[in-house]
C-alpha cells in the first residue's frame, strides 16, 4: 500500500500586498515548499494549482517563474476548500501510482471588501440575501437560540485567535485584542462584530506530496497523509447560496459527514487529534465546527472554548496559528495554509505556538457552494 506523505510545505505571508501580483504570492510559496523538501521544479511530475479570482491558467503563470519542465498543470477552483481540494488531487495521483512527486500550490490576491460571486442568483443580491456573512450570522444565531451560546463566547474565540497570532509571522493581524474591544467593534451582521469575521486578503501556500520511498531520498522530515476527504452539501446544509432547507432531516450536517469519512479513512477518531486548524471564517463557525468535528458534544463548543479547552495548552488546541480570523483568507491559498500550519506542528517547528508532542493533526475547510475538506496528518 502506497504511503502518501508531505515532504515539504511553504507559505507566502498572508496580508495585503499592493505591490505584489498573484504570480509572486504563488511562486514564493511554491519555492519555499520545494526548498523545504530539498527539491526544485525539475523534480515535480505534476502540479495542482488552487485559485478562485484570477483569470484562466493562473497556475501555469505562477509556476513558469520556477522553471518550465513541461509537466501537467491543472488549475483547481473550489471556493474556500480549493487548496485542500488540490492536496486531495495530489494525494490521489500519488496513491494511484501515477506519479512520485506532485506539487499543490494555492494563491490569491483578493478583491477588497465583501466577496462577490458566491453563486447567488441576481435577485438574491439585489434584495439583500446575497452576502456570505449573513449565513454565518444566521447559523450562529440559531446555535445561540438552541444551546445558549453567548456573545461573550464568540468574543472569546476572536480574543484567542488574536492572542495566538501575535507569534505567527504568516498571520495578517498580530495584535492582541481585548474581549471588550471585540464586543464593542462595529456590528457587521448581528451577533458578529468586525473582529469576529475574517478578512479576505493576499497570500500563497504550497505542499509537496510524494510517496514515502521517494520522499526519503530527499528528506526525513515528512508527515503522512492519513486522510484526505472532500464532500459537498446536501439539502439540509443551508449554506451559501441556499435559500431553503427541509425543516426535518435525519442525516448529519456536511462537516459531520466529512469528518466521519476522514476518521474512517484514517482509522482514527476525534479523541486521537492533538491539534486542529478549522474553518474559523467567523467566530461562530469555529464553535459550530468544533462540535461537528467531534471535539466536544453538540451545543458545548462555546463553553468549552471559554474554559480554555481549545486554547494552546488545552485539551484540544484549535487554530493556535491564529486561524483564518487572524491570518485572513486568501481564498485559494487558505486551506493549504492550514495544512502547512499543522505540518509544522507535527514536525515540532511551530515555535511559541507549538502543541507539545503533537502526533496527529487535522485541518478542515468549508466554503461557498457547500464544500467541506477534512485532512488528517500523522507523524
Amino acid at each position, binding site marked *: 500500500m502506497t504511503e502518501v506523505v508531505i515532504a515539504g510545505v511553504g507559505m507566502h505571508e498572508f496580508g495585503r500586498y499592493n505591490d505584489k501580483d498573484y504570480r509572486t504570492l504563488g511562486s514564493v510559496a511554491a519555492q519555499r515548499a520545494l526548498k523545504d523538501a530539498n527539491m526544485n521544479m525539475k523534480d515535480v511530475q505534476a502540479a495542482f494549482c488552487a485559485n478562485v479570482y484570477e483569470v484562466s491558467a493562473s497556475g501555469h503563470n505562477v509556476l513558469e517563474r520556477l522553471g518550465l519542465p513541461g509537466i501537467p498543470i491543472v488549475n483547481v477552483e473550489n471556493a474556500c476548500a480549493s487548496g485542500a481540494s488540490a492536496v486531495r488531487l495530489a494525494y490521489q495521483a500519488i496513491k494511484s501510482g501515477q506519479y512520485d512527486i506532485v506539487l499543490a500550490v494555492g494563491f490569491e490576491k483578493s478583491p477588497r471588501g465583501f466577496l462577490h460571486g458566491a453563486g447567488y442568483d441576481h435577485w438574491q443580491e439585489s434584495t439583500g*440575501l446575497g452576502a456570505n456573512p449573513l449565513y454565518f450570522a444566521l447559523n450562529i444565531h440559531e446555535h445561540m437560540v438552541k444551546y445558549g451560546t453567548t456573545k461573550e463566547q464568540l468574543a472569546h474565540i476572536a480574543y484567542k485567535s488574536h492572542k495566538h497570532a501575535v507569534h505567527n509571522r504568516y498571520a495578517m493581524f498580530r495584535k492582541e485584542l481585548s474581549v471588550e474591544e471585540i464586543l464593542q467593534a462595529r456590528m457587521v451582521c448581528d451577533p458578529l462584530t468586525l473582529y469576529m469575521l475574517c478578512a479576505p486578503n493576499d497570500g500563497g501556500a504550497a505542499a509537496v506530496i510524494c510517496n514515502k520511498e521517494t520522499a526519503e531520498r530527499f528528506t526525513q522530515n515528512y508527515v503522512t497523509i492519513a486522510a484526505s476527504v472532500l464532500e459537498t452539501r446536501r439539502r439540509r446544509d443551508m449554506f451559501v447560496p441556499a435559500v431553503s432547507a427541509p425543516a426535518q432531516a435525519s442525516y448529519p450536517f456536511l462537516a459531520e459527514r466529512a469528518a466521519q469519512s476522514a476518521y474512517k479513512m484514517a482509522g482514527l477518531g476525534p479523541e486521537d487529534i492533538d491539534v486542529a486548524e478549522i474553518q474559523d471564517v467567523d467566530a461562530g463557525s469555529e464553535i459550530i465546527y468544533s462540535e461537528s468535528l467531534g471535539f466536544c458534544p453538540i451545543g458545548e463548543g462555546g463553553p468549552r472554548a471559554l474554559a480554555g479547552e481549545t486554547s494552546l495548552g488545552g485539551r484540544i488546541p484549535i487554530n493556535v496559528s491564529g486561524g483564518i480570523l487572524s491570518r485572513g483568507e486568501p481564498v485559494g491559498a487558505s486551506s493549504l495554509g492550514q495544512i502547512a500550519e499543522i505540518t509544522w506542528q507535527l514536525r515540532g517547528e511551530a515555535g511559541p505556538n507549538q502543541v507539545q508532542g503533537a502526533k496527529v493533526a487535522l485541518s478542515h475547510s468549508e466554503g461557498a457552494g457547500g464544500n467541506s475538506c477534512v485532512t488528517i496528518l500523522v507523524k
Partner: protein
Amino acid sequence: MEGLVKVPVKDGLFQFTSPSPMLIVSCCSACGELVFPKQDYCPECCTDTMEEKTISSLGKLVCFTGITSPPPGFKGEVPYTVGIVEFPEGIRILGVMTEKNIDRLIPGMDIEIVMDTAFIEDEKEYLTYKFKPVQ
C-alpha cells in the same frame, strides 16, 4: 409608490396579485421533499418528479440577523433584517424581514408572508416576498 409599475424581482418566486401572498415551491411527488425557489429535479431522488405548490401559511421565526452596510449588488435600503422562517409544511426559507432592526424580533414568533418593495429602479417598483411579525 403610487403610479409605478409593480414587477417581481424574479418570475416564479411568488404570486403577488392574489389576495393572500404566496411563495411558489416545488414538492416531490415521490418523496415529498419541498424546495424553494421551484426547480425541476428533486435534490433527494435526483428525478424530475417535482410538482408546483404554494405556501401561504404562518411560519415560526427560527433565527435572524441585522445588516447595516449594503452588501455587493444590493439595491434596497440599509439597515434591514434577514431571517429564516420554518413553515408547517416542513420547509425553512430564508428571506428579508419587514423590520429595519432586530429590536422587536423574537425567536419562535409567528411570521406571515407579505409582498413589499425591494427597490425602485427605472421607474419600476420591484417587489419581493418579506417576512412580517404577526402583531
